[in-house]
């Protein structure tokens, strides 16, 4: 522990109380990674504030001591966005979990950052409302983390991402000031800092209160499961559904290998012999859903589906979703280890990219299971490998990166919902030019001139604020100080 951090202990204890400051190495180990377990770093200190004022005081103390700090919600992120800084403070919002207000008439809820995503929908349910963004970790992930990552979910095809459902944020700036971005109306005067902050992966400050938009629970929901011989047929069905002017709440696809894993794991009983299954969920006013369901069934049949199941009640629906929800974890049944990739391609390029992934997979001698949000072209290839072999682990990493290159070359993105974090910062220059990244840094520097807030995330080589681009003769100061790495 550096001297700077050590001097913070009494101050943070005075702010948050003795039981809210963790220094014990064993306890600290709990926090050394988030959902991306391949990156680990033990923080110097963990602090668990209970109020926005405490967060502000903690951040101000860090800023004055020039100690880096990282915010963490439930720690479910998959890109290492909440990976601690070794000589820094990890500020955990888990104790800030009050649903402060449900304003049903205005369709708004005000919540603290540690509230879980699902808890918002549960609190809104008595009013016939729900919180639309539904990342698959919604039972445990925090709304504060959702804001940082601009989380999506299976239903964002129709209902949008976190940024479409947040209308106000109370934040602590990296200098320790408590302020509001937006006023809950969705139409606040001035720059849309709220929109820019959402999805900034914890690099622009820490959220302490969130005003979310609530949505009317749809009158009707129908879930269809259509089985195909090939992912090509499934992809053709997706294109035809969208081409028919239908916007389902969700369109998910799983290939043969991911179906195999899901069957082994949860016994989802998908149609036997399916080379691909499509899950299509339609929601809205009852009459419209009936018409759309009929249209989707017809399209699935025309594009070669050999079996279609329809769920109209919650139990049937849960049965259809069981296999999809279990897909990631199910990989453990068929492989010692796996990398969850998160890339996006234009929907019309899905077929080509899947073919290419199959070629890459054969060439590398590694299996790739494909689970994806087909409606918006968001792929989650799962690269399976044996982590007891160093060579195979390295090959898996290379294959995973090659898949991202395919996404980029088709005009897509290196991440649709998991974020850049530490995991993908090295890929950012493949998607954006130096001027693009420099321009993003302008925003970073406006919020965090000292570069203390979640350093080393999102951007590969953070230039110091005020530094002029040019030839470098010495190591970057952030690299020299161990706060950043160069790839």
């Amino acid at each position, binding site marked *: 522990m550096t001297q700077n951090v050590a001097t913070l202990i009494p101050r943070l204890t005075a702010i948050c109380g003795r039981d809210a400051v963790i220094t014990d190495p064993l306890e600290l180990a709990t926090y050394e990674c988030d959902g991306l377990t391949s990156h680990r770093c033990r923080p110097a200190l963990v602090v668990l504030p209970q109020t926005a004022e405490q967060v502000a005081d903690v951040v101000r103390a860090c800023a004055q001591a020039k100690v880096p700090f990282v915010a963490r919600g439930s720690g479910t992120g998959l890109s290492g966005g909440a990976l601690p800084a070794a000589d820094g403070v990890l500020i955990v919002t888990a104790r800030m979990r009050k649903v402060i207000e449900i304003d049903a*008439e*205005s*369709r708004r809820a005000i919540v603290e950052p540690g509230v879980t995503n699902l808890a918002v929908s549960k609190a809104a349910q008595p009013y016939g409302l729900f919180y639309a963004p539904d990342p698959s970790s919604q039972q445990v992930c925090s709304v504060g983390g959702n804001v940082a*990552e601009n989380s999506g979910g299976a239903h*964002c095809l129709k209902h*949008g*991402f976190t940024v479409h459902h947040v209308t106000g944020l*109370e934040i602590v*700036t990296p200098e320790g000031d408590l302020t*509001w*971005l*937006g*006023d*809950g*109306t*969705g*139409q*606040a*005067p*001035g*720059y*849309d*800092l*709220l*929109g*820019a902050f959402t999805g900034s992966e914890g690099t622009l400050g820490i959220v302490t209160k969130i005003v979310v938009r609530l949505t*009317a629970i749809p*009158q009707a929901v129908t879930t269809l499961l259509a089985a195909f011989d090939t992912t090509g047929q499934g992809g053709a069905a997706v*294109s035809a559904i*969208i081409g028919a*002017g239908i916007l389902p709440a969700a369109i998910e696809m799983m290939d043969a290998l991911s179906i195999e894993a899901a069957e082994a794991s949860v016994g989802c009983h998908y149609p036997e012999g399916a080379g691909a299954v499509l899950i299509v969920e339609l929601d*809205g*006013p009852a*009459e*419209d859903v009936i018409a759309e369901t009929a249209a989707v069934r017809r399209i699935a049949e025309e594009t070669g589906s050999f079996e279609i199941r329809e769920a109209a009640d919650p139990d049937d629906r849960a049965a259809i979703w069981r296999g999809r929800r279990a897909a990631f974890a199910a990989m453990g049944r068929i492989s010692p280890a796996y990398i969850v990739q998160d890339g*996006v*391609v*234009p*929907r*019309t390029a899905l077929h080509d990219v899947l073919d290419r992934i199959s070629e890459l997979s054969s060439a590398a001698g590694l299996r790739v299971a494909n689970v994806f*949000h087909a409606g918006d*072209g*968001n792929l989650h290839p799962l690269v399976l490998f044996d982590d007891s072999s160093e060579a195979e682990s390295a090959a898996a990493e290379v294959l995973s990166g090659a898949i991202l290159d395919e996404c980029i070359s088709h*005009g*897509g*993105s290196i991440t*649709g*919902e*998991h*974020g850049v974090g530490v995991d993908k910062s090295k890929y950012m220059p493949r*998607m*954006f030019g130096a*001027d*693009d*990244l420099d*321009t*993003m840094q302008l*925003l970073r*520097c*406006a919020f965090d001139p000292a570069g203390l807030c979640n350093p080393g995330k999102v951007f590969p080589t953070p230039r110091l604020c005020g530094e002029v681009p040019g030839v470098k003769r010495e190591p970057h100061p952030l690299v020299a100080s161990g706060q950043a790495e160069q790839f």
Partner: protein
Amino acid sequence: MTVHSIPAELAGACAEVRAATVADAVAGVRPSLVASPATTEEASAVLRAASALGLAVIPRGCGTKLDWGNPPERADLVVETTRLDQVVEHAAGDLVATVQAGVTLKRLSGVLSEAGQRLALDAAGTIGGILSTGVAGPLRLRYGTPRDLLIGLTIVRADGTVAKSGGKVVKNVAGYDLGKLFAGARGTLGLITQATFRLHPQPAATAYVTVTCDSAGACARLVAAAQQASIAPVAVELHHASRADQVVLAVAIEGDSHGVAQRSEILADLLAVEQTSQAAAVADRPPAWWGRGAAAQADGTVMQVAFWAGRLASVLDAISATADRTGLDPLLEGPAASGVLHVAIPATADPAQVAAFVAGLRTALGGNAAPASSSVVVQHAPPGVRELTDLFGPVPSLGLMRAVKQRFDPDRLLSPGRFAGGI
């Protein structure tokens, strides 16, 4: 500064540079020059030259909202986007389109409709202008404002640096979303040259259900009733022509034609439960006043009132009480269910009364209470009103906004002074 002839740097940067005329004035401030770049590269060269010369730059589309906001502190060079007029790509299968900033929404809509698609924004002007002002019409209830449909952006910074953010896929969280920052920034952070949007299919059918309300309370109840999940409207607009008239609501329903017909009937029945002076009417065309927004009163004062939608009744009461106190009779119109109303006062009104109305309404809606939960922003106003009024009112996090402006445009060359807080 005064520029008497076209500087060589600028002439070399752009094929179309001319001396400005009276018609190029920006909220009464006359610039010296007008440049019309046709590509992002040319726009970059223009801004680089302007930056080297220290010229204050005002971006302009077709100029429909150029008088919005404060008059610029300085205006040397208008950079108009009308030659950036290409629909770059319409990927119909992906429901995505990329357009240059000078394309009008009307023209883009024509191109998209050939594939049965649309950009679900019901506003007027160029794509760059609509983005920069952040305007949205009735459809905002279902589809949001321009920032919600924008998925990729190309901008030119004050020093000529070209930068992109986002991309051409809808789902994308790589890097900061600078599109959010530039949407609604009124040209104070950079020049938008190209944008990529998420599209939606055109609905098979649309119906409008119109009903008259006899009180603010009834109006609020009807707005709530219209938003039931069984109706799922895409827009709920309010219209109150004058204090002698009753409030009228119109609800738009889109979708499958059978479903739309049935939902319209259900809604008409639902609305009839409230005591109204006439039965609800169902039509396949919107009322004449539908979605006029700030155009409701072209020469007068129009302010946008934003509030938490559930407080509609008290907002209507506050507007009414403020009108009483100031002796005015404003026109109210707008997407009430989205928590937005436009209040329009004719150009003939006494500027002092209008200024008193703006200030009075801000106080009535909560004044400087923190955190703010409402705002009153004057979109456009005659010069006499502008001089007496703080157009934007209190702005949360103004310090951070100034810091952002300082980073993007340290020499204050882009639309200086036009925006909130004098940014």
